[in-house]
């Protein structure tokens, strides 16, 4: 067991805290100090809540000293993506338009974290309103990849991926609309899960695309993600789309790490061409590890996946154009009075505010969605996209007839350089080719590191997909693979990442 509290996993911290070997204040202090040391370079956080985190830590320590029965993760600190409403803490979604807004309520996920006694360290950076794959669309500047600070940490949840990869937090909350938890995990050598749609409440998650959004865990190990998954999952009467069913036994599955007899399906359409050779090589090796662990490999075909990206980029902007209409300067957030207009009307203030408050990518998608929903175009665009969505779900259903889980590389490439794809939206969008189908079908997916690509020495991601509400299978496969890879590497992959204290000093 490591002695550096910042490098300890959440499971290890839970044990130390439970045994009384360390206090939550010590852990929280160590992580805040780490942030002070490295976040000037990594820029994972938009807002650090030192006072709030320490107060929460002290509260847990007091309750533990008083002999109260506490949650297993009580006292383990966590970072939260800035798209989740946090009472008393700024929530900007990476946008100027929400600058200064402090929600009067907690998202259900946040409430559950607080109820479990987990100190909230701060709010992590993201592409504006979760639109992007690099955090370069954050109005407050990008986050950086701890493996190479000139590279992207993935997106939209690049703050949450880099915060765990740079040892500023053992755990973080991410949200995943088309891959925003899994792709950042892949390019930073960390673990992230998008649960089944409806498995985790969306109440308080500022919506990008309501039918695709799902909050989930970010961590450095598969078990840690499972532990966090269990805290935040479960039915919420405040979210009509929340599934009213028992939470899958994810922690048990992660601990057993058993894949013997499991049928692993390789999706023909999401392998080979278009994937970076080093990413593909690590993927192939990982599959072999699973075979060695007793799994059986089958090949499946999902022909409709060809249309997934096109459908996604109609459904997402359509829903987003409506979800983002509420940002109008009337009740909260930014208000811009237009220049050169005497006594402007409400509509003129709305227009000036939205012009100044939204970034280019947000405007691009609002315009796309407004167009796609317009009378006369609805059937051709939104209507057709919904049909594709149905076909993709059918493809998954058929694939899960012959396979218990499906596996793919999480992203086609390793982390690209900051600025490389900023002027090429299509190239940026293609990054999510392997992650988007799961969002369209509402099924769960997990990404874990498969190693470093030979070409650039950067982390590659391995994605596991399971049928809806069979999230535990992700953790069985993930934990089994993680154990074999760690054994082969002689330790966690992140041990090979640069020591950032050197860089930032």
């Amino acid at each position, binding site marked *: 067991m490591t002695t550096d509290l910042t490098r300890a996993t959440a499971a290890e911290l839970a044990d130390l805290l439970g045994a009384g070997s360390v206090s939550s204040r010590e852990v929280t202090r160590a992580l805040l100090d780490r942030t002070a040391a490295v976040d000037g370079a990594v820029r994972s956080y938009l807002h650090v809540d030192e006072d709030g985190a320490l107060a929460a830590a002290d509260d847990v320590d007091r309750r533990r000293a008083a002999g109260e029965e506490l949650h297993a993760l009580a006292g383990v600190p966590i970072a939260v993506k800035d798209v989740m409403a946090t009472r008393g803490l700024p929530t900007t979604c990476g946008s100027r338009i929400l600058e200064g807004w402090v929600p009067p309520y907690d998202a259900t996920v946040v409430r559950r974290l607080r109820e479990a006694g987990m100190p909230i360290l701060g709010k992590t950076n993201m592409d504006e309103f979760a639109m992007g794959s690099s955090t370069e669309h954050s109005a407050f500047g990008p986050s950086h990849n701890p493996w190479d600070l000139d590279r992207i940490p993935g997106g939209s949840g690049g703050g949450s991926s880099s915060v765990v990869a740079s040892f500023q937090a053992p755990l973080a909350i991410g949200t995943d609309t088309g891959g925003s938890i899994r792709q950042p995990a892949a390019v930073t050598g960390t673990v992230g899960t998008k649960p089944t749609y409806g498995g985790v409440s969306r109440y308080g998650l500022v*919506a990008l695309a309501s039918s695709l959004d799902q909050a989930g865990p970010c961590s450095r190990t598969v078990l840690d993600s499972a532990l966090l998954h269990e805290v935040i999952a479960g039915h919420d009467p405040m979210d009509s*789309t929340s599934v009213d069913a028992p939470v899958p036994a994810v922690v048990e599955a992660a601990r057993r790490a058993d894949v013997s007899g499991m049928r692993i399906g390789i999706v023909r359409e999401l392998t080979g061409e278009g994937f970076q050779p080093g990413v593909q090589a690590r993927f192939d090796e990982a599959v072999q590890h699973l075979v060695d662990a007793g799994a059986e490999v089958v090949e499946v075909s999902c022909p409709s996946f060809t249309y997934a990206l096109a459908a996604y980029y109609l459904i997402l902007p359509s829903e987003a154009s409506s979800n983002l*209409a509420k940002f109008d300067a*009337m009740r*909260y957030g930014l208000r811009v009075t237009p220049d050169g207009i005497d006594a402007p009307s409400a509509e003129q203030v709305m227009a000036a505010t939205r012009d100044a408050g939204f970034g280019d990518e947000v405007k691009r998608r609002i315009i796309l969605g407004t167009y796609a929903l317009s009378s006369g175009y609805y059937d051709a665009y939104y209507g057709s996209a919904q049909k594709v969505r149905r076909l993709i779900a059918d493809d998954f259903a058929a694939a899960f007839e012959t396979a218990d889980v499906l596996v793919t590389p999480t992203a086609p490439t390793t982390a690209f350089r900051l600025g490389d794809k900023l002027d090429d939206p299509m190239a940026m969008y293609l990054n999510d080719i392997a992650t988007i189908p799961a969002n369209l079908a509402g099924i769960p997916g997990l990404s874990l590191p498969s190693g470093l690509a030979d070409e650039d020495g950067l982390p590659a991601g391995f994605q596991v997909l399971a049928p809806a509400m069979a999230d535990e299978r992700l953790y069985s496969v993930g934990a089994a693979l993680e154990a074999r890879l760690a054994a082969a590497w002689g330790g966690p992959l992140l041990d090979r990442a640069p020591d950032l204290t050197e860089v930032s000093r």
Partner: protein
Amino acid sequence: MSTTTGERTLSFDEALASFDPVMGLEVHVELGTNTKMFCGCPTEFGAEPNTQVCPVCLGLPGALPVVNAVAVESAIRIGLALNCSIAEWCRFARKNYFYPDMPKNFQTSQYDEPIAFDGYLDVELEDGSTFRVEIERAHMEEDTGKSLHVGGATGRIHGATHSLVDYNRAGIPLIEIVTKPIVATREKAPEVAKAYVATLRDLLKAMDVSDVKMEQGSMRCDVNLSLMPRDGDTFGTRTETKNVNSLRSVERAVRYEIGRHAAVLTDGGSITQETRHWHEDTGITTSGRVKSDAEDYRYFPEPDLVPVAPSRETVEALRATLPEPPAARRKRLQADWGYSDLEMRDVVNAGLVELVEDTVAAGASPAAARKWWSGEIARRANTEGEDVPSYAARLGVTPAHVVELEGLVTSGRLNDSMARQAWEGVLDGEGTPTAVADARGLELVQDTGALESAVDAVIAANPDVAAKIRDGKVQAVGALIGQVMREMKGQADAGAARAIILERLGQA
């Protein structure tokens, strides 16, 4: 735009000579649920601004709607009462447009999948005939907030220096009931429109789903109207008149728009498709915003809500909770009470149906119930500007008083004029009819000796009249009865007096 002088209109008769009106009525009803459509905020009318709000109905980032199950039940019951089919599966949709009193800048409504569709409502007209209004759909939606424009002369947005918004109303559950085009009403169009809204109001009130107070806006009517050439078959361009918030206004607005459309068309002009504002004070409409068919609300299914899929068992269970329709109930009661059409209409128009029903149930005859509730008390209530039921409630006058009063008459203690005095005493707060009769000494004289002496005295004083009666002119007896009653200071039974006179004069 002036709101006091209207545009040129043709007289109603002139307009109807050349054109047939086509109407479409859209009625918004605020449901009387305890909480809002998609959150747990209270719905009480008249609270301090912005005190009945939460993250959901304020549209705060991240908040999500949850459907009010009671509102869905009310919607289904309304659909059933309007003889509609109930959808087996339907969704909410987002109606997207920007307006400051709409917290999310979309209204959660239903679009192409209403909860109830294809029904009808039969309405009775003054001539006793029945007109069937076809219902296109009834769908669920949420209300918007309320804008208050400050600093201008009119309270309208034009000329205001700033606006305030009260979101207490945002998210109140609404049912919008839309008729199919109402055709072939001709000169009865205004009456049909009013009768439809009145019948709908009575029905919803009887169902206890809304307080249907048009003056408070819990029931609001928009009137779509167009004209087509007399006996034509192609609808003309329509206008949508908003803010028609009383029964009388419904009738007047239809009448006004018919005259206005007719004037425009007769002058060779064309009608602009637009919304119009109804001005109750001046009785005219003025132009609102131009509404083209191209207005695009970008409807799409609300992804934050799951479909509403009421089971057929649920629908049937709700059907069983429907009260008897007001029209059928009135027919049944009229037959039970033996009232003429005119008597029944008077009772209905005076709002006395429930009181009469309660009074009959308490043991009074239907005739007595009608007589006492529509007499002196109605006159006094009218003077006070109140309806009889609330006036009676305020005075503490009950059906039991009427029953007691009738009992005093049938037992022979009081005659009709004494009973009226007793009733006035009750209304003056002097106590029960018996207490009033006791206190005022109201009692028919039962002593036949006194009555016989009085009769003899009157016959002696009127020999001419007595002679006529002896000769067979029995109808002249009335003059003598009146004198006997005066002699007895009113405390005699007129029937007994008549019998004795006739006996004395050989006509018994």
